[in-house]
């Protein structure tokens, strides 16, 4: 009997990308350009080898976005920070001296995220947002969770957006479950 829980596709992709970036600078350089539509093709070889459907936008873009973010952040391993939380932390102790949650800029960033309606639009918004989070020193994002969320966005955008909003306001229950996920 196999004791180890089988890892899902998102996890395998993220872990493989991290490992590959550490191993090869050339591939890391190609992956860094994956979130730019003009240079995105350079990462297709890697994505193709993973079995990602390159023809369809909403299937391809989540992987290019995450791969680019990982390559830029130069991380050693997958982190635990959630996206909403990362936005808050990026604006803590900022110029306005407010708590991250109360910062107008942070709220504007969140609202832009919540206003996205399609995966390509979301990936465009995430490109700058992830760059910001990374530049503020919060590279330890939970990329596996984020990738799962972006991939699911096409099917149930409201659910994913409500998760980000809750992450932003830390409305997480003791059981690690997001409050809004329980519905009758």
């Amino acid at each position: 009997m196999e004791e180890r829980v089988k890892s899902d596709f998102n996890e395998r992709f993220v872990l493989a990308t991290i490992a590959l970036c550490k191993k090869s600078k050339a591939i890391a350089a190609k992956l860094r350009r994956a979130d730019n539509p003009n240079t995105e093709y350079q990462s297709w070889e890697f994505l193709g080898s993973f079995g990602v459907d390159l023809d369809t936008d909403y299937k391809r873009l989540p992987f290019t976005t995450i791969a680019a973010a990982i390559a830029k952040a130069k991380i050693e391993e997958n982190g635990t920070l959630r996206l909403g939380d990362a936005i808050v932390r990026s604006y803590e102790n900022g110029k306005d001296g407010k708590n991250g949650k109360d910062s107008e800029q942070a709220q504007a960033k969140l609202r832009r995220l919540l206003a996205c309606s399609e995966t390509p639009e979301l990936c465009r918004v995430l490109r700058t947002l992830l760059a910001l989070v990374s530049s503020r020193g919060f590279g330890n994002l939970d990329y596996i969770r984020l990738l799962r969320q972006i991939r699911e966005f096409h099917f149930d955008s409201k659910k994913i957006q409500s998760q980000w909003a809750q992450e932003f306001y830390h409305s997480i229950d003791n059981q690690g479950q997001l409050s809004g996920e329980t519905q009758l």
Partner: protein
Amino acid sequence: MENRYNLIDEPWIPVADVGKVSLSDIFSARYRALGGNPVEKIAVLNLLLAIAQAAYTPRDNEDWESLGEQGLSEKCLEYLERWRERFFLYGDKPFLQMPAIATARTQPYGGVIPFISSGNTTVLNQSNVEKTLEDAEKALVLITLMNFSLGGKKPDNYIVLSDSYHGKTNDKEKPATAKPGPSVGSKGLLHSFIIGSSISQTVWLNTFTEVELKEVLHQFPSGLGTPPWQVMPRSENCPIAQSLSESLCGRLVGLSRFCLLKDNSLHLSEGIPSRSYEEGVVDPSVAMNTEGKEIRVVWANPDKRPWRELSTLLSFFQHGGGGEYRCLRLACHVERTARILPQFSILSGGLQVSRHATGEQYVTGTNDYVESLVRLDSSQLGAIWFAQLRLEMHLMEKIEKMLYSSVLRYVYVSKNGSKNKKIPKIAKKIAGGATSEFWQLCERNFQSLVGSCDANEEARLARYACRKKFADYARSVYNQHCPKETARQMQSWAKNMPKFGWYLKQEAS
């Protein structure tokens, strides 16, 4: 005048699953429960209790126990047979009526039944229209009128039977507005009874003993007294009337209105005045708190359904607690009942009314009947069970408050955006609607919560399951009232979301 329509033989009492039955049927067969609206139930139950107390008042609890349900029913049947002549609805001595009041102005039956449109009241639906009543329904109206009459100008107070009586005139020597019946009070009192498996058992369970009458019921200086049908008073303040106003029987079936039934109307005037809760006198079924500056009672409130008052009504379980409400009927009889029956229920009900500054009472759109039946397990009852129940209710109220403020903040911020403006009424209304829906959902699971307030592990798990349900209800109500369609809505939704982790954590481990 011909004596006819004897309440002992004619079917007039509404009974659940059966229809209408007579007084002798009630005591000779085992019917499950009374029917009708809560006020009718309480009025009929009070009449049955007055009959039982008059038929036989047990000396003490031992005598009461040896008497049993069957014994009391037999005594009641004997009593009814003895006083058969006094239970005619029409005749020389009509039941609970004053032929002397025949000169008073008449009032249609609809005028004394709540929710029936009379005068210039708007008719909203067919149930507001007055119907022609049969004798059975008239009897029921008469019984409810005795204690549950609403204050107002409808009783004709020009007619005063006693020359020396001034209770029916105001300062200007004009006829005064009639005072509400003793079981209604100013806003509508909440009444509670112990309910057994049959009506006759319920009567037996709620019967006071002589010992209790002496020790506990000091509100009634005349003690048990004589029921009004045995000796009717002659006027508003004759010695019989005075003794009625100070006795338990006179409280159970008071004569707050003097009336005489006619075909389609009734002569009506104010009757014997009864002392109000402000003077420290209430029906034994009403919970009262006399320890504060002012005497307080528990009112019927459609916004706070009676099951939520259970921890208030049962506060006698708490030893040494001060400032508590006390319902004499429950305080005297719950422990006695728990020794005999494995399970019993508590019925709480009443009618909320609104009152005008002039003293006129009426039923508005927001007023309503309330009624709750909660089943209790005798093996669980006690101080520990009660403390847990009280804690659970307290926590649920805390959840309600969190939900209210969350919805309020959501609506307020998403509509205004600024914190300095006054909170609009609509926000409060939406938040109030949300909490009311939360309680409605919780009501379905309240019985399981009552059953899981024990101290053992099994009860703790059951309690945890209840708490999870209640928290889920609150979340779902929040989600329903706070939509998250747009980005701003979703932001506000997440920002104000109530968190119930603390509530579940306490019972989780």
